[in-house]
């Protein structure tokens, strides 16, 4: 069964088609990657799924329930967590308090949210920095904080928007291990946008390639990276000289 299903989703900005007729699904318990050149519409798809924009056309179903047109907080309540490509920490709050805000989504009491948030912070390797202000974190740590906050809402589906960008290879492997473990132990479904192919190949069981707002290829990583249409979108058309 599919956890997330997009069918014919389109979204334009002042006549510019950012996404047109995107159709794909994310299997329950799967890890899928959404790749494509800059401006392909990846982040727009995330924003449409997360409720930031309503799609102009098409349907989005989460566990069979239509979620297009819901507000972001309603989408979160339904069980979708997301991170932002351009990180948006609560700068004036401590690392722990940032995560508590997310944890309050599922916890009745502030005290319970605090202890759950502390667990997540530890898990993402931010334990030593839990009392620091989020504004004092380095970019890689801010990315971790984005993930920690989203995880604290206990999502069934996690949307990760370039959380590996700017990380060193070892840091990248660390966070990949965290996602793998969450996927294995808790059945967390993940859809990630990523340019770091090291992470994509290590994590994704399935890849969706977007180009000019359209899905041009879908399939297993090994097949997709050999697909001529994909190579063309990244490297340009072959021309006779």
């Amino acid at each position: 069964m599919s956890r997330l299903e997009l069918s014919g989703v389109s979204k334009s900005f002042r006549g510019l088609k950012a996404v047109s007729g995107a159709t794909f699904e994310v299997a329950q318990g799967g890890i899928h990657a959404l790749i494509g050149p800059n401006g392909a519409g990846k982040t727009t798809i995330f924003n449409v799924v997360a409720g930031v924009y309503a799609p102009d056309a098409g349907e989005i179903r989460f566990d069979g329930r239509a979620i297009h047109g819901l507000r972001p907080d309603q989408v979160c309540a339904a069980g979708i967590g997301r991170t932002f490509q351009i990180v948006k920490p609560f700068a004036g709050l401590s690392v722990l308090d940032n995560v508590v805000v997310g944890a309050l989504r599922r916890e009745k009491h502030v005290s319970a949210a605090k202890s759950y948030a502390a667990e997540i912070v530890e898990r993402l390797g931010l334990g030593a920095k839990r009392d620091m202000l989020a504004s004092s974190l380095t970019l890689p740590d801010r990315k971790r904080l984005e993930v920690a906050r989203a995880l604290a809402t206990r999502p069934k589906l996690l949307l990760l928007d370039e959380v590996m960008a700017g990380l060193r290879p070892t840091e990248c492997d660390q966070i990949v291990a965290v996602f793998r473990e969450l996927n294995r132990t808790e059945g967390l479904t993940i859809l990630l946008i990523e340019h770091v192919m090291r992470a994509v190949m290590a994590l994704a069981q399935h890849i969706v390639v977007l180009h000019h707002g359209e899905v041009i290829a879908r399939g297993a990583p090994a097949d997709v990276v050999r697909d001529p249409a994909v190579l063309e979108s990244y490297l340009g058309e072959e021309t006779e000289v």
Partner: protein
Amino acid sequence: MIARLTEGVPRRGLVLLAALLVLLAVFPLYASGYLLAVGFLILYFAYVGQAWNVMMGFAGQLSLGHSLYVGLGAYAAAALYVHFGLSPWIGLGASIGLSALAGAAIGFLAFRFGVSGVYFAILTIAFAEFARIGFDHFAWVRGSSGLFLPVANYTTNDLWNLRGSPTMFYYLMLAMTAGAFVLCHALLRSRMGYYWLAIRESPEAAEALGVNVFRYKMVAVVISAAMTSLAGVVFAFYYNNLFPEQIFHISRSIELILAPIIGGVGTLMGPIVGAFLLTGLAEGLRELMLQLGIDVPGVKQVFYGLCLLLVVMFLPDGVWPPLARKLGLRR
């Protein structure tokens, strides 16, 4: 209940707070009439500053029209007292209801249609101005000629009708300031407090974490408006006269946000510290000018402005945060 409220508050902070409360409680025993009036004013600004802080300091919504809620609160209770002899404590219901309604209307218009930041601030000014001009022509409350409460020299304190000595008003204001402090402290530690701070720091991220931004901004405005209107009621019964031109004036809105800004926006002690500094400074300057025999109009205001400028330049977060670090209450 008390154990839960004080949990996690540094012991030193509790001791200092208790000491401050005791000082303020015994103050009227030794103060002259003039000093008592200054004390009342300080507490008044600390209280309304705290109320404004709920909106701006916690939820990040800048209101430059809080005189609207002071005025509505004052006029509702005063008019009901003058016309029907109703106790201000009954009138308070109308005051809070009206102010909360006005706050909800402004909030709904702004938040529903995505008016935010400075544009939201302009909207709050506009509503205060509507009220100022509207009340000028509102015959039931005597319009621009002003609404007066019957005054006599009270020898007894009638708390039920708020007729009594300045000492009674001082203690009432002290109780309100302490109450507002405890309420805001509790609010900040609640789910709502976390949500407000999240909205203040990044509404988009708050939304993505499941926070209903519209709802919690509305609640912030309504709570802030309701708290402010209570100060309006006391204001009306303390001064016994109300003019739309004064009470709804924009200078009143500005005046009441200075204490939390100077003290530290978003902090619980900020409005209190700011009120002490500003009112103390203003009255001190007045006294100084008197002693020096300087009688040039505007000198006091220039000094006052200079002092504000210095604080804003050198302590942009307000006086309280660095002071709290000095006192060992914060890292």
